[in-house]
């Protein structure tokens, strides 16, 4: 089944895309919880509107991009997909976790 081989590809792509989406702040939308408003892409609310939430937008950014790659994998020649090592599905998230720990280390050293 084509879609079955797309699943591991999605899981390899998602963490590798989530990291830059978060690091470079590339949300598909921004949610402003104080006013319950959604804004397309990156939106920095004025001070009185409270903080903007980008997390949901990062999830959708990485999800859409990973789904597009997985879809391409579903229609790619089977031989090409078989060349992708299955171990990447756990190496990719572990590598991203290591990068996240480094990025977030500032919170723990203040």
């Amino acid at each position, binding site marked *: 089944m084509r879609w079955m081989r797309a699943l591991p590809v999605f899981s390899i792509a998602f963490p590798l895309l*989530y990291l830059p989406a978060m690091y470079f702040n590339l949300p598909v939308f921004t949610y402003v919880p104080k006013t319950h408003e959604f804004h397309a892409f990156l939106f920095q609310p004025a001070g009185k509107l409270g*903080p903007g939430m980008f997390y949901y937008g990062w999830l959708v950014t990485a999800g859409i991009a990973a789904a597009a790659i997985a879809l391409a994998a579903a229609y790619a020649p089977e031989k090409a997909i078989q060349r992708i090592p299955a171990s990447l599905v756990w190496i990719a998230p572990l590598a991203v976790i290591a990068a996240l720990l480094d990025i*977030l280390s500032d919170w723990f050293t203040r």
Partner: protein
Amino acid sequence: MVLYLLVHMLLAVALLGAVTHQALGVLAPVRRPAGVFFTRFRAVNGTGYVNAIVVLYLLTASLGLIIYPNYRLGARVVMEQLHMYARVGSFELKEHLIALGLGILPAYWWAWQPAQKDHAMTRRFLTVILGGIVWYAFLTGHVLNNTQGIT
């Protein structure tokens, strides 16, 4: 919102139990059935947990996403004012790990399908990573809720 938080926690407990059973089952599989509690704990058929874990993870994460704005506007602001930066950072890590968990769920489900018997190591790693994410998220959420009620 209190109800959401309560259901979120209850689902997290169920998820924690299921994924711990499965993770220990793949890390230290039982060769012979025995009567000791720890051995019985590991002696589960991991395949039977897969769909439940996927559904529980999605439900728990969805409720967490609904509750999250309350944390962002309330608890986080207070913790930053009190200079509890390590706790804020712990929650930042939690949200990113949950996102990564959502990303690896498809591969996790795929790796546990009967057709993927050859991918035992992949299955083992994905299960342990997912278990680690669930444990970290559970403990962090619990500690932070004790620090400053999310609601």
